[in-house]
């Protein structure tokens, strides 16, 4: 990456920029990686042994939908169907929520478009009781863990049934029952917290692994380096993922680091590090299962760069056509994660276009039913909202006198 970085200016110092801007033709370098490139790794491997894996790209699905290579997890067709359903569900859910945002029924939204495979395949590779410590673009983990869509929608709307009581912006889910830890807006803060969560699991002697994600842009934060460093020192059972989707709002990954890539940044910390194709369901599943097995066997942390492309806007508040070529994502060499799994399943004869269409219809009608139910509990435009008294509760375990006085002043 270093030598080829496009620059906004070279003088008096370099200011990197994105490779393509509005009006440019999309120009992604052609992918040279194949599923046969990278060998499997022993669970107790050293960081050095993963060097090729950090600089290469771990793939299982090739460009024609065939699975191959030593990392092929050879998953049962039921798991593949399940994974495909979760990804479709997330995409259709996202589309519906964006519509609600555009009609003023919720304040803000963030889609996972193009990144659906990440949290879904990775969470499926974990155990049900493993801790998931997400950033805002891994809501898909909740589908895997069985969260009710109405409950997720209630949160996004911020209505009376929102389990975080209208206190957080949409998409900042919390779901303790699903071992899904509360999402925070300041980016990256969760990275070393996840290390602490994993240390606590180890301390209690539980076979429990923690996974966390942050983005390429966020990897510039101190918290990313705290996480890598503390994980390298204490070696707890944690999986540390950088989702390199190329963009942090409009800021290209070229601004996040001057180094060669993201995965390799784990190597000097002594952490086995792998770059994985983030639109390849099978590769994600396989590498995460391996990282979990490593952690569970006491070999400590794994660092993953999940290489993908943010197909949509950062959020409902920005228009990517203002800072990159329109429909840039259609040229992404990694394709679309849903299409790739679907093609693979059709190629192997376990799926058909008809079944796919039927599944979409089924999910679509479930999502419609769910949003009707969720909005029946209130929406942003019309209320009802959670009672104003929720401003004052759960600040502390019990309401202290000064907060109580202020609640009485509000008179609600």
């Amino acid at each position: 990456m270093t030598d080829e970085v496009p620059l906004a200016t070279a003088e008096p110092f370099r200011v990197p920029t994105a490779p393509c801007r509005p009006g440019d033709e999309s120009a992604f370098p052609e992918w040279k990686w194949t599923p046969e490139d990278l060998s499997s790794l022993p669970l107790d491997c050293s960081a050095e042994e993963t060097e090729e894996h950090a600089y290469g790209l771990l793939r299982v699905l090739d460009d024609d939908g065939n699975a191959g290579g030593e990392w092929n997890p050879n998953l049962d067709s039921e798991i593949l169907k399940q994974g495909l359903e979760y990804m479709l569900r997330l995409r259709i859910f996202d589309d519906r929520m964006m519509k609600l945002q555009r009609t003023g029924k919720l304040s803000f939204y963030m889609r996972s478009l193009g990144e659906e495979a990440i949290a879904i395949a990775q969470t499926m590779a974990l155990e049900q009781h493993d801790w998931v410590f997400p950033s805002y673009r891994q809501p898909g983990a909740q589908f895997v863990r069985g969260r009710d869509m109405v409950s997720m929608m209630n949160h996004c709307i911020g209505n009376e049934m929102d389990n975080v009581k209208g206190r957080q912006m949409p998409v900042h889910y919390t779901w303790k029952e699903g071992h899904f830890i509360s999402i925070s807006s300041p980016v990256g803060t969760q990275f070393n917290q996840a290390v602490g969560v994993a240390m606590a699991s180890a301390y209690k002697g539980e076979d429990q692994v923690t996974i966390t994600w942050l983005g390429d842009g966020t990897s510039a934060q101190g918290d990313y380096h705290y996480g890598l460093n503390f994980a390298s020192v204490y070696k707890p059972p944690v999986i540390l993922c950088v989702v390199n989707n190329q963009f942090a709002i409009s800021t290209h990954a070229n601004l996040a680091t001057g180094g060669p890539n993201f995965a390799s940044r784990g190597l000097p910390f002594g952490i086995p590090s792998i770059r994985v194709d983030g639109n390849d369901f099978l590769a994600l599943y396989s590498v995460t299962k391996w990282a979990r097995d490593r952690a569970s066997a006491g070999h400590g942390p794994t660092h993953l760069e999940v290489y993908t492309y943010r197909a949509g806007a950062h959020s409902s508040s920005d228009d990517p056509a203002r800072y990159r070529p329109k429909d840039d994502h259609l040229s992404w060499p990694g394709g679309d994660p849903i299409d790739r799994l679907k093609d693979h399943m059709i190629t192997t004869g376990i799926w058909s276009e008809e079944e796919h269409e039927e599944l979409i219809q089924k999910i679509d009608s479930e999502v419609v039913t769910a949003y009707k139910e969720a909005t029946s509990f209130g929406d942003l435009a019309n209320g009802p909202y959670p009672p104003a008294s929720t401003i004052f509760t759960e600040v502390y375990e019990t309401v202290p006198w000064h907060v109580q006085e202020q609640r009485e002043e509000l008179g609600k």
Partner: protein
Amino acid sequence: MVEMNMIEALRSALDDLMQRDPNVLTFGEDVGYFGGVFRITDGLQEKHGAHRVFDTPLAEGGIASMAMGMGLNGLRPVAEIQFADYIFPAYDQIVNEIAKVRHRSGGEFTTPVTFRTPAGGGIRGGHHHSQSPEAQFTHTPGLKVVYCSTPLNAKGLLTSSVECNDPVIFFEPKRCYNGPFYGDPHKLSTWKGHPDADVPEGEFRIPLEQANVVMEGTDCTVIAWGTMVHICQQAINDSGVSCDLIDLQTLVPWDRDTVVSSVKKTGRCVIVHEAPKTSGFGAEMSASIQERCFYHLESPITRVTGWDTPFPHTTEWDYIPSTERISKAIRGTQVD
């Protein structure tokens, strides 16, 4: 009861907590093998094991985020920040994360972290080993802020802080680790023979949110915390004015009833802290007291504080509120 200095009392609290609750663990820079630069955790690693008392990388932001994670997953971490001046790399984790997670998660997640940190001046520590940043935390909903002043309340308040299910910032006045400080750097005393150096062994707590009335009087209420409690004691004696001296002990939430009833009784109030004046916690106290006691006040509420400047090195005795400044302020409240 055993006579202890503040270091021994804090150690005794941690030892007792760790003995009673396997989920309590403590860590920080130099905390493990060495026992801390102020020796608070001396011997605890040997006794409780290196998985419960351990050293960390030199990264306060990392210490805080790791502690938050441990707290989320059922542990009760006690993190030492070597000097309160070094807490700021952890500020985001404390203010945006640790303080807020209970509320932001609808009560689903909590993290009962306690941060112990030595604060205040008087040890020739210059700007970066002397600050009193309590107001930077009293302004954060979700945190409790505690300040000890003697071996007795150091042990009792630390125990209550660690057992509290809310996160606590626990300040230790480093000038008083080895003895109370009455304002004269040429006359240092030890805790030997001080009534509050008699500390119960084993389980002992002083409730949070309760102030301690150190001296009782009739004509002025003096409110202080940390090292200032002892300097105020001397200043009150020097002033010849009969005063209530209130050691606030917990700054958030502070003990409204004790403070308000004292000021209503005396009609006068002096608030003393080492931290700079502007937006210091004295400003909050002063405003709150006048809201509640205005018609009982005989004179303006006065603050005696550190200056609105960085904390100095060789001239620190001109920075820390002196007995002269405090007694002058007390006498000033008595003028009709």
